[in-house]
């Protein structure tokens, strides 16, 4: 809705907010131990697998689960228990990482991945990168965050170009 009063123009928007649940990288609520949660931005699955395989060897990471969150969008879960600074260091070594996810994670002090599906999209496990190193924490020890958002995800136009 647009209201014009002389030279002044007022715009009002209405959006429907949806409740979403995100899993946070932080172990329990007080410890400085974090799991490695990764959000990939517009990358192919083969690039992601290659990138994560070398990362797994380099940083001696336990098994990594790669999940398709929507079309051309992937999440990865690795149940490590490393310090936040080490997690930042590992994440900065991933060229395909979603930049805004990385920046907002640093500001927050933990990284969050959405676990409730958007309309029409379903989470699907694509690949598990097995490892000789055991998981460093129970998947149960993580934390969750419930939030309201109007974010409908990345637009169809961006994907249509591919």
């Amino acid at each position, binding site marked *: 809705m647009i209201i014009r009063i002389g030279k002044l123009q007022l715009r009002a928007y209405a959006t429907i907010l949806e409740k979403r649940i995100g899993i946070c990288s932080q172990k329990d609520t007080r410890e400085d131990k974090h799991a490695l949660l990764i959000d990939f931005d517009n990358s192919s699955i083969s690039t992601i697998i290659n990138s994560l395989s070398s990362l797994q060897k380099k940083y001696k990471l336990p*098994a990594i689960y790669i999940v398709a969150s929507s079309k051309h969008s992937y999440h990865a879960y690795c149940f490590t228990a490393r310090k936040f600074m080490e997690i930042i260091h590992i994440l900065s070594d991933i060229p395909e990482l979603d930049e805004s996810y990385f920046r907002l994670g640093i500001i927050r002090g933990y990284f969050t991945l959405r676990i409730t599906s958007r309309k029409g999209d379903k989470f699907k496990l694509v690949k598990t990168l097995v490892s000789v190193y055991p998981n460093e924490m129970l*998947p149960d020890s993580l934390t969750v965050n419930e939030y309201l958002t109007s974010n409908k995800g990345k637009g169809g136009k961006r994907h249509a170009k591919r």
Partner: protein
Amino acid sequence: MPKGRKRTEEEYEREIEEASKRIRKKKENIKTARTNATWQEYLTDVLGVSPKALDNGKDFWESVRERTLEFDTRAIQRRSRYSELRKVGYTAKEARRMRDWSEDKVELELARKSKPK
């Protein structure tokens, strides 16, 4: 922002800054995932992981053993049978042919061979 227009680099930076201010102001409430049904469902249905099981790297070694065990025993069996047959007096060509035979067939053949003529 009007629909259809792309964000400029400056606008993008400003939005990130505003979001970070909001985050800093608002005390976010994070809770343990232990009691969260959505995460428990996600773990079992999507990741196929037990929420309470601490994986001890077993997956990797199990998959290695699965792939190599059968092959290894067969290879060892074939090698040892070959040397056994050679010791008894078979030629290399015969031993190579016989090493893939069943246990019973080899025994019969050995008995036949050892029988005094």
